[in-house]
């Protein structure tokens, strides 16, 4: 059903799509190509001594975090969507709070707790012997890592399951109640099957974030693939780094393929009924139990780290290096704003362009943007880093632009990595705008740009805010890409917090850490308001 009428106008749209797709393909191609070069002894060393460890640690961490996030997020979404109890409305958005806490910032707070566990170790040793003590000491970092990542990432599963339960489960659940199936039974027989695509979607995000995590695992000394890639990169063993990155990408692709398979097979007729869902009230005793349980992950993922950092901030207030902090904050803000703008604009071009121009090419570009999101951060980092370095080394002209090349590289990396974050809400918003409106405008003499600006965009405003907010928060909290690609002596709040934590100056890391939490919270407000607009 292509039209072919607007070839001239579509140039900008298709150029954007082609640029993005080209970048992603170049990136993947570069990495694959570099990985095929001769790596010599370094690779053999990794292969024999470290690879297996990287692999099973990555998989173990990923499974642990997935289970943890699932066990927290899914029941929470069910309870909030389907049941009525005191303070339900508040809990609904309270559960989203941990999204504002970057995992590695929480890790810093928990490191302190880990360090303070010596009396516990002593007790274990004296009660259960040295074997038990060694074992406990070994698994503690794992326990902490899994708990922290689960507690900060579960909102992804919570939100996607909540969306499905609130919109589509209403009818199914009401029918099942009339047929005598409710409560736990209802959850397992109705809720769980309905939630499968949501679990797949949210779970996919959780797994991607876990693969990409660097701050938490390095704080607790785990050696998953991402720190392995970093290490190789830092040691100058680029080919080793590329190969490890490729391996991570393969694992991530397998996970995403499974997720797609899970969601793709089910098509739900979404209920258009606007009548409010009749929620099952909980008895007070059960309600207090629910609150107690729900507060555990929120405390672990948000409240406790915040409190620890506030205490540190109070203690170190007089020591603060204000200039360093503000410079880092300024860098964080400008990068996040610039990247959010870039990402949202290009996502708008792709999404709306695909609709107005009915271009299949643009739809493919959308798919490629999602592929960009699925590339592990470490891989995007080393890929873009290699490309930018090669370009700046290849000519004198570019070498002089080292700094700007680096920031450009960083922005390009953000673009590739975070396009999908804007594309999803924008496509969702666009589905609410009937196609006939654009056609009606066309019959009244309007051309593509006119339709774009006068019809589609004004009707999609809320989606723009959500997309911009999500992109802003994600870039703001971003650590991995920034660590690798930033120019020399250029810090963001994220890298600063990481560095201070790494250097053992935990208390001083509180200020950048807390600033990130506060700014993330502000960035989340449009998301929370959008949640509120969906009838609760």
């Amino acid at each position, binding site marked *: *059903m292509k*039209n*072919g*009428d*607007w070839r001239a106008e579509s140039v900008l749209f298709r150029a954007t799509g082609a640029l993005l797709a080209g970048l992603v393909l170049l990136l993947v191609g570069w990495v694959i190509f570099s990985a095929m070069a001769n790596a010599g002894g370094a690779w053999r060393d990794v292969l024999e001594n470290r690879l297996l460890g990287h692999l099973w640690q990555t998989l173990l961490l990923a499974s642990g975090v997935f289970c943890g996030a699932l066990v927290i997020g899914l029941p929470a979404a069910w309870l909030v969507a389907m049941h009525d109890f005191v303070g339900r409305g508040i809990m609904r958005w309270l559960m989203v709070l941990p999204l504002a806490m970057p995992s590695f910032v929480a890790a810093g707070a928990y490191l302190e707790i880990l360090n303070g566990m010596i009396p516990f170790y002593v007790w274990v040793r004296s009660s259960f012997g040295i074997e038990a003590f060694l074992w406990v000491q070994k698994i503690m970092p794992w326990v902490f890592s899994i708990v922290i990542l689960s507690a900060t990432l579960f909102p992804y599963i919570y939100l996607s399951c909540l969306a499905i339960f609130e919109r589509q489960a209403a009818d199914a659940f009401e029918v099942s109640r009339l047929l005598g199936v409710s409560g736990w039974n209802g959850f397992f027989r109705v809720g769980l099957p309905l939630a499968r695509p949501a679990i797949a979607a949210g779970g996919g995000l959780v797994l991607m974030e876990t693969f990409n995590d660097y701050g938490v695992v390095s704080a607790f000394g785990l050696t998953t693939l991402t720190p392995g890639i970093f290490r190789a990169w830092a040691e100058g063993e680029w080919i080793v780094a590329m190969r490890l990155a490729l391996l991570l990408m393969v694992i991530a692709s397998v996970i995403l393929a499974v997720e797609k398979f899970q969601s793709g097979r089910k098509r739900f007729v979404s209920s258009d009924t606007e009548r409010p869902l009749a929620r099952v009230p909980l008895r007070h005793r059960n309600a207090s139990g629910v609150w107690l349980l729900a507060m555990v992950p929120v405390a672990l993922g948000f409240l406790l780290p915040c409190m620890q950092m506030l205490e540190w901030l109070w203690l170190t207030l007089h020591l603060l290096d204000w200039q360093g902090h503000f410079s880092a904050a300024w860098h964080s803000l400008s990068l996040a704003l610039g990247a959010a703008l870039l990402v949202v604009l290009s996502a708008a071009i792709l999404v709306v362009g695909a609709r107005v121009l009915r271009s299949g090419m643009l739809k493919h570009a959308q798919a490629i943007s999602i592929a960009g999101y699925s590339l592990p951060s470490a891989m995007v980092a080393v890929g873009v880093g290699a490309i930018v370095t090669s370009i700046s080394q290849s000519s004198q002209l570019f070498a002089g632009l080292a700094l700007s090349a680096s920031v450009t590289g960083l922005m390009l990396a953000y673009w590739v990595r975070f396009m999908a974050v804007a594309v999803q809400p924008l496509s969702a918003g666009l589905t609410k705008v*009937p196609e*006939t*409106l654009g*056609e*009606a*405008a*066309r*019959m*009244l*003499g*309007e*051309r593509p740009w006119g339709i774009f600006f006068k*019809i589609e965009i*004004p*009707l999609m405003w809320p989606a723009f805010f959500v997309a911009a907010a999500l992109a802003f928060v994600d870039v703001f909290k971003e650590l991995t890409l920034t660590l690798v690609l930033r120019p020399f002596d250029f810090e963001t709040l994220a890298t600063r917090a990481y560095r201070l934590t790494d250097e053992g100056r935990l208390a001083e890391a509180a200020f950048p850490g807390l600033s990130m939490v506060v700014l993330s919270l502000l960035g989340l407000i449009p998301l929370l308001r959008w949640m509120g607009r969906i009838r609760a």
Partner: protein
Amino acid sequence: MSTLVIRNISKQFSGNANPALRSISLDVPSGKILALVGASGSGKSTLLRILAGLEKADDGEILLGDEVLFSKQRSVPAERRGIGMVFQNASLFPHLTVSQNVLFGIRQMARVKQMQLLEEMLECVGLQGMQKRYPHELSGGERQRAALARALARSPKLMLLDEPFSSLDSRLRQSLRDETRQILKNSGATAVFVTHDTSDALAIAERIAVLRDGELQQVGAPQEVYHAPANAHVAAFFGRCNFMPLRSLAHPNGARMACHIGPPGTSDSKPELWVRPEDLELVPPQSEILTGLVTQILFAGTHQDVWLECLSEEGDSISVEVRHHSPIVIATGERWGIAPRPRR
């Protein structure tokens, strides 16, 4: 002059086994209203969209007046065809007021002219005073009228309407239908509207084109299409029709009167009479006329629909439907004679 000429328009969507449109040709005289009718999937909406320029035909020609809108060599883009279109559920822009909607297509005119046209249009469709309202504040009928005003504001030579009344309830439909006809005639534009509702077509249109599976079955005035259908499909489409394996139908007074509407031409294989239920009446049973047993009765307010089981000359069982207007009460199980009802 804005005569619409459609020649050999064909369209096949990739991925579909059957073509959506097979070499459709028809004309709409300037200022007349044509109804495109057919079942879902007959291709009527596709043809309308091709006329609008929202879809491109594979082959054929479209001329409006003396301008070529579509041919193998060129195709004028939809936004330049100067055609007004009213969509199924009005498709008013929800974020704009009624006046902003109506003015949307005429922004390039002088401000004074715009305001003048706005007043005219709103008065023409009966929405005076509603300028500042938003679409969600209007009723379904008001929305359709606003959509009409918006399309007519540009003084189009051709108006296209896609199932304009299908989203309205039946009482509203009638009044809006008549108003729309009046508005269209006043504007002088040539109009094509798509509907699956035959009563809309019969009431408003001056010409009706019947489509089936992408093929044109018949084009003609409403009376023609109703009383002289080209084939059984058209006959059944516009109303109930009995297909009786009989040569003729006798009247009690002995005469054999013409009351059938088909089949067209002479077909000597099997005799078949096409008779509409309203062209039959119930009479006391007699020997030379067709008689039957009443099996079902449906009260329809103005009349009763009565079904009778009869026997043909060959001994086959025929089910005949008769529209019974007289106040005589009919009961199931009774024997009645079926006679042609004169058309005078």
